[in-house]
Structure formats: structure tokens, C-alpha cells
């Protein structure tokens, strides 16, 4: 057994134990800490965990290989995306520092759940087996169910958790059923067996049905139409850090599983799934962006816009070309920094109604500027990260001779710009309801600044990031 290959996963398990111990020991009775101090200590412990994990992952880069037979792969692809998951989690934990108004009790368990979700995502980056895929996905999703319903005093949060649980269970059902069909045909759950099956000749209807059921199950995770129904309500009700994790981590996890499954295993039947995904991409783009226009709640707005972004991701995915897969990778990176920055602002601004954003530029010029940059990056405006992502994805659609899809993608750039600018309009053009300035503490300011810097750097100096992702996404 090649233990260093799973070092980061083991480290997460270890840190979960540390968090448990910390939660038990840092109590008012035991350590004599008052509540605020206890929360800060727990936060530091979680942040320290991220630091330790980053160190482990850096050390681990020498140990590329397999574990548990061929079930678990630690390759360049896994390594790159594990870094991105770690960054996402670090930002989400950084948000928690300001999360006290959310009235989250039992903060220790909350960090524990974040780490178990992280464990699920880290494993998903490495999967090479359908069974492991299911286990890791359920680990991620179960942590998110609980976190979505974490604010027990808020009925919207309970509703969000409930809806997510029901919809998520249905999707798990699809996934399991698809896996069982594929298992029946291939005689094994490993990707190797599946690859051999699909390469051996024309795929039978049961194999294709299995494949599409698995795609449907993953479609829930990336919030693609027609599996998107849970998104707006869950985004609205769940605590903001959870929504950020859901929107970035969960979507990215679903997307990289799709990448690995479709591009390393299912390429022989590409003719079938590219056509289906292209149609889904068009529907997702149009639905997400059009439905975002009338929203009055910022989290719902970002929820619908995240559906729209799933459409762009699928557009790169459905090209069936390696350049399309690499475009998806770059888009994910751009989406990660922009969305995290947007949710960071949402976290700090009190209230989720768009009315609260009226005159934000008077109340906090820094937050307004950050939101402005994040939203324009999501809309795909140069010189920001989102622009290059959109350009690459559109290019892959044109390369695969789907001009109609590129045209729909182009149209949606204009639509999405409209509703993002409506938020900008509120922040810069309208008068604030109250002139009370919004305080931003030093750590939040620093993290937000780093994210904005990332948006600008990824948008202007694209080459190193593109090269990194291209070398990672080469199956």
C-alpha cells in the first residue's frame, strides 16, 4: 500500500479529530473561555488545519501514483484540483470569521462538517472507480445537507436543508442506478473496466442508459437544467459560507468528475454525449440567465447566475475536444475566484435583499468596488478572469462546429451583463437607505483583496494558469 498517495486525505481525517478534541476542550467550563474568544480559537484551529493541509499537499507532490488498487489516482489532475479545493475551503473558513451574525451555534461541529466536505472533494479529485465516486460524493453532499440546515432558528435554513436533502437523494438514486447498470455491463466498477467496455465496440442501450443516469446524478451537483430546481431556494436559505462552498466546491467537484469520466473513459461514445450535453448547455444558459433577471434577493440572483455558469461549463465540456476540457478547467478557476469574492461581499453586507445594496458605494467604497469587480468578472468583462474563461469556452464551441451554441453563449453574455449591471446600478447610482458605514475587519479585507488581485492577474497574465491547467487536464 502506497500511503503517501493518500496523505492529504489522511491529514484531513486527522485534523477532523483535532477539531473534535478542540471543540470538546475549548469549552467555557473546561478552559474558562467566554463565547467570543472560544469562537476565535476554533476559527484559528480550523485555519491552522488549512495551513497544515497545504503543507502536506505540497510535500505530497513527489508521490504521484495509485492507491487501493487502481481505485484512487493521485495524478497531475488530482493534484491541481486538490489545491483549488483547498483554496476554496480556506476562503470559506475565512468568511466564518465574520459569520457571527448568522447565529451559528455549535461552531466546532460546523468546522468539522466543512472539513468532511473537503475530504469528499479531495477524494473526488482522485476517483478512478464508480463506487468510490459514489462514496465521496455522498460524503460531500451529506456534509452540505447538514450545513445548509444549520441555522435551526431560521425556517428558511431548515427549508433549504430539507429541499436539498430531497432533491439530492433523488439524484443519488439516479447515480446508484446508473452505476449498477454500468457495473452489470462492464463486470466491475473500476474506470479501467468501463474504458475497456466502451472501447470494445458499439455501446448497448443499457450501457448508454447507465452512462446517462450517472450524468444526470452529476447534473444535480453542477446544477444543470433540468436538474437545477433545488438551486434558488437552497441558495436563499442556507448560511452564506455554505452557499459559497456549494456554489464553488460542489460545482467544481461535479465538473471534474464529469471531466474525468467523459474524457478519460467515455471518449469512444463521445458522439452520443456531446450532442446531449450541447442541448443541456443551451437550455441551462438560457434558463439560468433569464431567470436571474427578475430576482430581488442577491443569493437567489447568484444562484440563478451559477446555473448560467454551469451552462458555460457544459459548453466547454460538450466540445469533446481536449482544448474544450482545458477551457473548462480555466473557466472553473476564473469562476472560483470571482464567485468567492462575490459571496465574501454578500457575507459582510448585512441582509440579503438587493435593496441592501442600494448606495453601497457610499457605505463602503471598498466592498462596492470588490462586488463591482467580481460581478463584471462573472459577466466576462476584460481585463478580468471571467473574460478569458468565456473566450476559451466559446472558442471550443466554435472549434467543435457548434456555432449555434456559441451564438447562444454570446447572447447570454449580454443578458448576464444586464442583471449584473442592475446590481452595479444599485451600488453606485442609487441612494442608500441608511448611511451607516459597514465595517470590514482586517482579515476579511486582506482575503478579499487577494481574491480581487487573483481576478485581475488571471485575467491579464493568462499564460501560466492556462499552461498549468492544460498540463493537468491531459488524460
Amino acid at each position: 500500500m502506497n500511503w503517501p498517495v493518500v496523505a492529504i486525505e489522511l491529514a484531513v481525517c486527522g485534523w477532523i479529530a483535532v477539531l473534535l478534541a478542540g471543540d470538546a476542550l475549548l469549552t467555557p467550563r473546561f478552559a474558562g473561555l467566554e463565547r467570543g474568544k472560544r469562537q476565535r480559537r476554533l476559527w484559528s484551529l480550523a485555519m491552522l488545519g488549512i495551513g497544515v493541509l497545504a503543507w502536506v499537499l505540497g510535500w505530497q507532490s513527489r508521490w504521484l501514483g495509485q492507491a487501493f488498487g487502481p481505485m484512487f489516482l493521485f495524478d497531475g489532475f488530482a493534484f491541481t484540483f486538490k489545491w483549488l479545493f483547498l483554496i476554496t475551503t480556506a476562503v470559506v473558513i475565512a468568511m466564518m470569521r465574520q459569520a457571527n451574525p448568522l447565529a451559528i451555534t455549535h461552531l466546532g461541529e460546523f468546522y468539522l462538517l466543512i472539513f468532511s466536505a473537503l475530504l469528499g472533494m479531495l477524494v473526488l479529485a482522485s476517483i478512478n472507480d464508480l463506487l468510490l465516486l459514489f462514496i465521496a460524493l455522498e460524503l460531500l453532499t451529506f456534509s452540505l445537507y447538514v450545513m445548509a440546515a444549520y441555522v435551526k432558528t431560521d425556517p428558511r435554513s431548515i427549508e433549504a436543508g430539507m429541499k436539498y436533502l430531497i432533491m439530492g437523494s433523488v439524484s443519488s438514486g439516479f447515480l446508484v442506478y446508473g452505476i449498477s447498470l454500468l457495473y452489470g455491463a462492464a463486470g466491475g466498477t473500476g474506470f479501467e473496466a468501463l474504458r475497456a467496455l466502451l472501447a470494445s465496440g458499439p455501446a448497448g442501450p443499457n450501457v448508454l442508459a447507465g452512462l446517462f443516469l450517472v450524468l444526470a446524478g452529476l447534473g444535480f451537483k453542477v446544477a444543470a437544467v433540468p436538474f437545477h430546481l433545488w438551486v434558488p431556494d437552497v441558495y436563499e436559505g442556507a448560511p452564506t459560507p455554505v452557499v459559497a462552498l456549494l456554489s464553488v466546491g460542489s460545482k467544481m467537484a461535479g465538473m471534474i468528475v464529469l471531466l474525468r469520466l467523459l474524457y478519460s473513459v467515455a471518449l469512444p461514445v463521445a458522439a452520443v454525449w456531446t450532442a446531449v450535453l450541447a442541448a443541456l448547455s443551451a437550455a441551462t444558459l438560457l434558463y439560468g440567465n433569464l431567470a436571474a433577471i427578475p430576482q430581488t434577493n442577491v443569493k437567489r440572483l447568484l444562484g440563478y447566475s451559477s446555473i448560467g455558469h454551469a451552462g458555460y461549463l457544459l459548453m466547454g465540456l460538450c466540445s469533446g475536444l481536449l482544448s474544450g476540457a482545458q477551457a473548462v478547467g480555466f473557466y472553473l478557476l476564473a469562476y472560483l475566484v470571482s464567485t468567492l469574492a462575490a459571496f465574501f461581499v454578500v457575507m459582510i453586507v448585512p441582509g440579503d435583499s438587493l435593496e441592501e445594496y442600494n448606495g453601497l458605494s457610499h457605505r463602503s467604497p471598498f466592498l462596492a468596488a470588490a462586488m463591482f469587480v467580481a460581478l463584471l468578472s462573472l459577466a466576462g468583462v476584460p481585463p478580468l478572469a471571467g473574460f478569458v474563461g468565456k473566450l476559451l469556452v466559446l472558442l471550443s464551441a466554435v472549434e467543435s462546429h457548434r456555432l449555434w451554441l456559441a451564438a447562444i453563449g454570446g447572447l447570454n453574455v449580454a443578458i448576464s451583463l444586464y442583471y449584473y449591471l442592475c446590481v452595479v446600478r444599485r451600488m453606485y447610482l442609487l441612494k442608500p437607505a441608511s448611511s451607516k458605514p459597514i465595517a470590514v475587519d482586517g482579515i476579511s479585507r486582506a482575503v478579499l483583496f487577494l481574491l480581487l488581485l487573483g481576478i485581475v492577474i488571471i485575467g491579464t497574465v493568462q499564460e501560466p494558469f492556462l499552461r498549468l491547467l492544460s498540463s493537468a487536464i491531459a488524460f
Partner: protein
Amino acid sequence: MMSPLLMILLAPAMGVMLLLWLPRQEIRLIRRVAVGATFIPLLTALWVVTNFDRSSGGYQFHVEVPWIAALGVGFHLGVDGISAVLVLLHAICAFAGVLISYAIKERVKEYYLFYLLLITGVFGVFLSLDLFFFYFFYEMAVIPMYPLIGVWGSDTKEGGRVVFSKEYAAMKLTIYLTSGAVLALIGLLWLYVSCGAQTFDVVALEEHLRAHPLDARLQWWIFPLLAVGFGVIAPLWPLHSWSPIGHAAAPSAVSMLHAAVLMKLGSYAIIRLPLNLLPLGAQAWLPWIAGLCTMNIIYGGLVAMAQKDLKFIIGYSSSSHMGYVLLGICALTPLSLNGAVLLMFGHGVMTALAFALVGHIYDETHTRSLPELGGLAKRLPFIATCGVMAAMASSGLPGFANFVAEMMVIFGSWDRYRLQAVLAVLGIVITSVYMLRMVRGVFFGGANESLAHAKDAATPFARLPYVVLIAALLIVGCWPKPLVRLIDLSTRPLVARTLAPAQPLEVHIAKEQTSITQIVR
């Protein structure tokens, strides 16, 4: 030594960086930074125009840095005769615009941030020789218009009632221009993929497409995507409706840049990309576009005649004058294309002057409505003098750059589009009607008592932007030869290239005709 083009592009960009770190109370310092960030490009642009090697032509002052190797994107700057003139135009207007912006009193720091960002974007478009960066800067120039109009603009009122709010104008402008840009982007990506050269570099694409021309059917499809996509900003009739509203809502310094240079981005992009790269598509589509731009001239002119708001008059007149530019491009003779580029310069300077003047009048009288103004020549002698000169220039009187340019366009397009040329002459008459009516209504006639407090631009500093603009108009008008020669260096090969694929056909026809006449004999 730093490359002059890099200096032109980086000076306003550095201005943006610098402004980010300046505290917002330091208004004087912020303004000085902005003036410096536009004065350096002005000097450098003059240097570039005078030092352009007229004996060799082509693209000069190259800056090349490989950027995204996998896609064949390079950061490639360079100017030819056409873009050198437009860079000079933009440098003049940007400098004058920053001086005019002294009228902005609130949220000064943010204003100059967005204004310099806009200026950087426009310079980037004129200087880029790479499709990726061309589009990059193009979109970067469009987006700052939204906050610039939305925050510092003004609603269009008629009798105390808001007709168009500034928010509506800003949103309409942004969405129109972005939609056009995206349409053009799809055309560019299609071109990139189908030509198979794996490069975004314009010069390399030119050479590649000359050696391996694109299939005629493909050219026929891609050309309208690019021409209409960039035509939206030109503004090509019937996609012009964002433009007068945008002019009216924007603060005067932004209207200046909007009319003077932003519209020229469209016509420049049409010359540089579709005309240059897709000759067969151009020959198939240009007659149609020539028809549309005649509508620009006549329709824009007639609508301008009916307006009462000064900014709307100039706004519609801009869209009318851009019709001449597009007609000159469509006619595709060296003379008409030279005229079109020169008119871009002349009209740019003239319209910047006009919007600056309207801005001053509005600041002093708080109205832009023609019936409420009158007799301002007594109160504002300097402004009135400038106003009369702007009107003269706009109507195409000899002595101004516009006269030379419009004549070149009309003479140049006579051979190919006779009807359109006749209508264009009619357009000049329409122009002089509304321009003279405006001059009479604002500066002469009975003075309105409520305007007695209006003040002239008194100090030399306040007069500086007007003087710069009028000087540019008069110098080029009286001595157009240096600029025309510069433009001619690039238009002649361009016209030859674009018409080249048709020549075998024409020669063929000519041969047939001679043989037929021989047979008849």
C-alpha cells in the same frame, strides 16, 4: 528607450494605478495625475505621427511579446498610417476631455479612474495588432461608460418631465455595444478556427489569408458578423438608437470621447478586420452597407433637424456624419478611404469641440433646450466664437478638416455609388440647416433675461481645451497634406488587396468585351 506605443498605452494605465492609491480628498493632485496621464500620450502621439517612416509604410513601432502560446496570442502593438492618425485624434480628445472634466465636482477620484480606464481601452484598440487584445481593449473601453454615464450623467428632460433617465441610457448603451461586440467575437473566433493559422496576430493573419484565401462562402458568412458587430458602435443605421440617448445622458467630457473616438472604434475595426481580412466577403456585402449608411446620412440629418435639445442635435448629427465615413469605406477607392479616415479625424475633433461647448453652456445656464436659450453671444463671446467655428466645420466649410475629408469621400465614391454620393451632398445641405438654426438659436437672437448670470470661459486655462481642438481643426483643414499622405500609405495597399481577388474576373470580362467588339467589327 521605451517604445513610444507602449508609452502611449501605459501612461493612462499607470494613471489608473496611481489614482487607486491616492486619497479621495486630494482633488487637485488627482486632476494633475489625470492631466499628466493624457498629456504624455499626446506628446508621444505627435512624435509618432511626425516620425512615422513615410518611405516604407506598413506597420511600424512594433512591440511584440508572446502572451498565450497555446492559442497563438501575442501582445502586439503597432501602427500604420490609419491608426497613427486615430491615435493622434484620441490623444487630442482625451487631453481636452480631461481639462473639460474640471467641471466634475463630486466623486472626482472614481470619475477619473473610469475615465482613464476608458482612455486606456481606446488607445489599446487603436494600437493592438492582435485580435485577442483588440477585443480585450474594445470591451474594456465599453464597460466604463456605464458608471460614467450612470453616476455623473444627467437625465434628459423635456418641460420638467424626464424623457430618458441616465440609467436607461447607460444600460441601453452598454447592452447594445456588448451585444455587438459579442457578435463580432463569434465572427473573429470563427475566422480564427476556419483559417487554421493558429494565430491571433493581425499581420500574420493578413499574410496567411493572402496565401490561403478563405472559402468565398465562409467569407460571405463571417463578414456581416464582423461588420454589423463592430457597426453597432459606428453607429450603423438602424442600430444607432443607443447613441444619441447616450450622448445626451453622458457628462460632457464623456460625450466628447464617446462621439469623437468611441464611434470611430467601429469604423476603424471595420477597416482593420473585415475589410482587410475578408476581401470576398467585403465585395459581396459592401453595396448593402453603402445603402445603410446613406440612411445614416439622410435619416440622422433629418432627425437632427427636428430636435430641440442641443446634445440630441449633435448626437444625431454625429450619426449622420459617421454615415459619410462608412460610405467612404464602402466605396473602397483610395480617395474615398483616405477621405473616410481623414473625416474620422475631422469629425472627431469637431464633435469633441461641440460637446465641450454644450457642456459649458449647460453648466452655466442649466438648460440645453433650444427654445430656452438665445443671445448668448453677448454674454459668452469666446464660447460663441468657438461655437460658430464648430458649426462651420460641421457644415463642411472650406478651411476646416471636415471640408477636405467630405469632398474626398464624395468624389471618391462617385464612381461606384452615384446615387449615394448625390444623397450625401444633400446631407451636407441638411447639416448646414440644423447647424445654422442651432447657432442662431443659442448665440444670436433675443437674449433671455434668465441667462444673464452665464459666464464665459475666461482664464487661459479654461480656454485651453477649446484652443487645442480648434487649432487641430484649422491646421489639418488648411494643410491636410501631411496627414493625407500618412493615411494614403496604408489605404492604397489595403484597397489593392481587397479588390485583388476580383481583378481576375474584371480582366476576364474586359477581355471578353474586347473580343466581342472585335467580333462585331
